[in-house]
């Protein structure tokens, strides 16, 4: 009983002291009635989350009373355990009509958010495979093939890689091997690489001459921009001088010397991950 008073004062600090004493008398009366009916102790349920619309009483204490939930305390102590939220009553709560307000008893149930349950149910509703449903001709026996979603086996040779005299070429022709049309799919890259083939032999000679004349000025990117081609083509056309390579190596070492432990490890891990792609691990 003392706990209930404390809880009342804590939860409604704005109430005047006199009012709270009256309400507490009402509360004790309620609790006496409840204890006669077999419910030993009561537990406050938070009323902040409750919707106010259906509630007949504006008085917060009545709201408090109407949102009581039956609760069994520990056997040893008569104190109300705030941590436990197990709702157990000796009788079903619907058999106690005086406890119920004039509203639906949904709020007296377990603490479960209705919307979350529905959403969960909705999320779990996965569309079955097409072969599970009613097919067009149920008269004949048919195979239900519902494979789990997994990566295709590498031992399954693609159609294009089969030699021309292989039997599987004709066997797979009628099967629906072309389920996806690549035209409808988005590309990995934003723009397709454009091949221009506009550089002549003289241009390549010019590239080599420029790069050997001043490798600092004419870097790969600068040459690529000047000749309107890709830096990879510059690398294919000519090679940097050993001096330039040494300078570049020193620049890289200077940059790397400023890396801390975390960044260095992250870079090394990234490199290791990239190498594991080729091993398909």
């Amino acid at each position, binding site marked *: 009983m003392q706990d209930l008073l404390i809880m009342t004062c804590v939860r409604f600090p704005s109430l005047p002291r006199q009012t709270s004493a009256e309400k507490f008398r009402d509360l004790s009366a309620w609790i006496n009635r409840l204890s006669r009916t077999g419910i030993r102790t009561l537990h406050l349920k938070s009323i902040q989350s409750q919707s106010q619309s259906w509630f007949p009483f504006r008085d917060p204490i009545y709201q408090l009373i109407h949102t009581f939930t039956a609760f069994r305390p520990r056997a040893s102590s008569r104190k109300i355990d705030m941590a436990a939220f197990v709702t157990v009553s000796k009788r079903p709560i619907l058999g106690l009509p005086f406890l119920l307000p004039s509203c639906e008893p949904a709020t007296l149930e377990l603490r479960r958010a209705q919307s979350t349950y529905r959403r969960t149910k909705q999320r779990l509703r996965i569309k079955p495979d097409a072969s599970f449903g009613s097919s067009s001709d149920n008269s004949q026996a048919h195979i239900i093939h519902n494979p789990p979603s997994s990566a295709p086996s590498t031992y399954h040779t693609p159609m294009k890689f089969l030699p021309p005299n292989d039997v599987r070429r004709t066997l797979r022709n009628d099967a629906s091997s072309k389920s996806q049309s690549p035209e409808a799919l988005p590309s990995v890259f934003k723009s397709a690489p454009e091949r221009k083939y506009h550089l002549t032999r003289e241009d390549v000679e010019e590239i080599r001459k420029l790069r050997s004349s001043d490798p600092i000025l004419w870097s790969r990117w600068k040459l690529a921009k000047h000749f309107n081609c890709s830096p990879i083509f510059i690398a294919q056309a000519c090679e940097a001088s050993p001096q330039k390579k040494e300078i570049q190596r020193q620049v890289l070492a200077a940059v790397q010397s400023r890396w801390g432990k975390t960044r260095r490890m992250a870079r090394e891990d990234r490199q290791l991950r990239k190498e594991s792609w*080729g091993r398909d691990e």
Partner: protein
Amino acid sequence: MKRLQLQRWSSSALSSRARTGGRLQRHLYSGTRLQSTNSYSLQDQSLGQQLAPPSATSDVPKFTKRQLPSPPAEAARESAKLAALHARLYLPSRLPLETLARCLVDASADPSAQFNNQSLAVLGNDLLSNYASEHLICTYPRLPLTVIFAAMYAYVGPKTLLAMSREWGVEHAAAPGGEVDPGLLQYKRLDPGAKPDAEPLVGTTRPNEDQTTWRRSITSSVVYDNEFGDPERAASPPAELSDEPFLMNDKGPAPVTPEAASATFARAVMGAIYLHAGRPAAKRFFEQHFLSRQLDISKMFNFQQPARDLTRLCARENYDEPVAKIISETGRRSRTPVFVVGIFSGVDKLGEGTGASLSEARARASVAALKGWYLYSPLEVRVPSAMEEDGAAPWKPVYVDLGEVIV
């Protein structure tokens, strides 16, 4: 194809006492060791001394078992371990226990070529390499050479043979000797802490082996190196069969590792089965013990630049240029995105891969496409050795590929 009279050959694998063949063979192949007399006393006669020819009435040798480097042939019949090993391996009954005992004697234990398993191991190694390579090449005709070498090592390499001899339950003798149970594998052990491969191999079959900076192509490994692509020591001409017996006080041969000794033993068993029971039994033994080991060849690839390799492959085979397309994706803006990327050539999908980034998914899809190319396997695989069976169907040429992609 005419069948060879292997039974006649196999008698030479047995020492003279264990042989049950004809009298002529017994006369021809009688081992010098068993005929050696007791005129040998270790104290006053050196080993290099020329022996008097054994008299016709020479008695059984007076050597004690402790003086012999390996167990005598008559001990094979009394060894329970040997009989158990013979039964456990389900060896053909035509393979006598004496030959199995000889298979267990390594050349480091007994240098005499008549009593160790060296000759059997040479034969068995050739058979194993032949069967394994023809199986690999006919089953996966497009495999790159490096993968073929690795797969050969996985099928008949020394590490596999060591594991197999352990699975067969072959125990190793602490030290070789005549008094040892012939059911134990006998070899001269390395000293503790010794490194067997410390110094580089010299005297290999490869020319210009002193040029360490020269590039060693994988193609030259086919020509010069052994079946695993490793340089091997050039074979020396077989040593003359010395007349004097080898005794324990002689300076012994080099010690070997347990791995090398076990590998030699497993190869010798294969050669012994071939000699005594013939080719079908040898092939059956290979299929049951070697080919039945599971090997996932798709795990043996390592591509450095898979997308570039696939582009080169498609250019070589006159396919359309491979294009990477996003099949599905989830959580692009999240911490754990998943992309499913397919590689298409024209309208055909070559491969599919998933990854946490678009570049990873593309690389994995390229790897899947390349593996789809390299792991092509014909439907009916027939190896050339299948033609050795009686009543074999006429040979149809197997699929031969252009070779791997060279960038």
